[in-house]
């Protein structure tokens, strides 16, 4: 039987706890949510295989939750829970994509058979998902990959803003894929047949950035041995992407502000006013609003480049995408490097999904590329991951050593579905020690 990660969504505490308790006796990892909103929040950060959803709940009902889930994560299996007399709602749910429905109270034999059947279905779905997605692109948007609600929101925002010429500021931590967002906006915009010119502002000194953006004539400065068109000129008819725009000096901000307002500029060493027509997309990992308050960034320039903000979530805020991304990169590097690493072991996935990813998607990509290169088996194993040598990196928790230990053990237990042997193995301690820690910290599997 495949291991399943399950969520029970029901407003009745007794049903939630009862079903959770029954499922846990089968070794499944089970979370609970008392309403649809809580369930959606959990779905944002956790990858679930199977949801049990009560049809009648206050606020958003089970049918609407089912529709939302199926819109964003169609592979998640949803079983509706209904009471006597609400069979019509159950039929409606089946039409909306529910895999089955259960009428309370359930016959234990039927429930067990149903869960076993759905586990098999999930196995088949997983086996086909990666191939199918390559064709359907449901979790891919241009070169962006993500099925979490957080990334789906980004995709929708990109679609909304792509058609206009409005300046966009893409904000997010290093490695989240800000340039890919900019490229996606460009690819969907009317300027898609024009050039996409990217400039990493943090990689140049002020004078070099000036000549890079505006270009220069031969002899304009020492070393200017030939005329060079600037990136702004080269981007005519297309899009300019200014990465790390927060690194631009105040003087350069003034120069760029003029270009943005007038669409005109001077090439260095040339008194002729040149015109250019580009759309500006900027990106930063810094809090520019705070920089403006501190006086380190010009307010007028900030407002000019930040007409619309596209926030890109860090990977730790969309852990549900880690498995998807890991398989995506695995497929890519397996092909590029001509290797035969076709899967990722459950233990390795547990490690990947419990890591904090300070370097975000870029770090995950590097980890998978490395695993494909050094892997000796057909599946990525824990030993292929760079975390093993130094121990699993821990989240930057501020607190005592005991608090950190408690949090880490709790998280590892949750990740492993309270499988004591597996958790102890990953923690590198024996089961007795783990039990003692569980007792000491009063950890309980019911905590969700």
């Amino acid at each position, binding site marked *: 039987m495949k291991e399943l990660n399950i969520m029970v969504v029901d407003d009745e505490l007794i049903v939630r706890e009862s079903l959770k308790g029954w499922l846990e*006796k089968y070794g499944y990892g089970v979370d609970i949510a008392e309403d649809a909103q809580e369930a959606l929040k959990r779905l944002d950060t956790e990858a679930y295989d199977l949801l049990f959803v009560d049809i009648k709940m206050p606020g958003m009902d089970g049918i609407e939750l089912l529709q939302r889930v199926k819109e964003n994560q169609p592979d998640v299996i949803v079983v509706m829970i209904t009471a006597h007399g609400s069979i019509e709602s159950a039929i409606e749910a089946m039409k909306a994509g529910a895999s089955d429905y259960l009428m309370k109270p*359930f016959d234990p034999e039927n429930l067990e058979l149903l869960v076993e059947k759905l586990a098999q279905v999930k196995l088949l779905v997983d086996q086909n998902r990666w191939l199918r997605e390559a064709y359907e692109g449901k979790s891919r948007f241009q070169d962006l990959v993500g099925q979490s609600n957080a990334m789906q929101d980004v995709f929708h925002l990109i679609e909304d803003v792509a058609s206009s010429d409005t300046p966009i500021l893409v904000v997010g931590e290093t490695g989240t894929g800000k340039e890919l967002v900019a490229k996606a906006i460009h690819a969907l915009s009317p300027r898609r047949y024009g050039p996409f010119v990217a400039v990493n502002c943090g990689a140049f000194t002020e004078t070099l950035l000036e000549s890079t953006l505006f270009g220069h004539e031969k002899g304009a400065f020492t070393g200017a041995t030939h005329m060079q068109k600037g990136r702004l000129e080269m981007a005519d008819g297309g899009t300019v992407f200014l990465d790390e725009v927060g690194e631009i000096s105040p003087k350069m901000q003034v120069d760029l502000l003029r270009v943005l307002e007038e669409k005109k500029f001077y090439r260095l060493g040339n008194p002729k006013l040149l015109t250019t027509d580009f759309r500006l997309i900027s990106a930063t990992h810094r809090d520019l609003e705070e920089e403006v308050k501190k006086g380190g960034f010009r307010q007028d320039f900030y407002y000019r480049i930040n007409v619309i903000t596209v926030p890109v979530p860090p990977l730790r805020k969309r852990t549900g995408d880690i498995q998807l991304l890991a398989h995506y990169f695995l497929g890519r590097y397996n092909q590029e490097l001509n290797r035969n690493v076709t899967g990722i072991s459950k233990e390795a996935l547990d490690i990947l999904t419990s890591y904090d990813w300070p370097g975000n998607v870029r770090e995950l990509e590097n980890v998978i590329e490395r695993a494909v290169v050094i892997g000796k088996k057909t599946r990525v194993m824990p030993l292929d991951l760079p975390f093993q040598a130094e121990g699993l990196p821990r989240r930057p928790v501020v607190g005592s050593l005991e608090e950190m230990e408690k949090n880490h053990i709790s998280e590892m237990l949750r990740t492993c579905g309270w499988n004591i042997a597996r958790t102890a193995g990953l923690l590198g301690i024996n089961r007795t020690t783990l039990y003692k820690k569980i007792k000491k910290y009063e950890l309980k*599997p019911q905590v969700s």
Partner: protein
Amino acid sequence: MKSEENIIAIQPLGGVRGDVVEVVAANLKAFFQIPTQVFLDQPLPDGAHNPHRGQYNCYPILKFLGTQKPDHAVKIVGVADVDLFIPILTHVFGEAELGGHATVISTYRLDKDEKPVLPNCLYDRAAKIAVHEVAHTFRLPHCKEEDCIMNSFPVISHIDDKPVHFCRYCLTFLKDAYEELELPWQLGG
């Protein structure tokens, strides 16, 4: 905890047959190598009976059993002869909280097969269910090994084919639980 103090308490409920209680107690003692002590019969707790379903809810019973457990008892096992349920299921043969202290089993559905069952069958089934449920209280989940007593059995006749036996994985987990509770381990494995 001193080993000589450890017992599994057996709590008869609602006038269940004494012979069944004795069989359950003897099997639990033999299987878990922990002495059992049979208490005086107690009525089923108020609130357990659900007149709408005509059955008894396990949760109030487990809560009641928790209040009856003496400190020196590592577990307490309620034995009843009424139709048990938990709110999501039509019926159960027994119920235990994973890693908890109390469990309840019932003989109600153990001899209601379509075909006649042998006289000893009720004893055999009651003993196996009691072992299975008590093992849940030692944090053992269901097992995929078909010849393990922790394999699930939604249909009662399925339990007849199972020996009272833990597979080596479940035995290891049980040993871990004994170590955790500082119980003497005499089950081998």
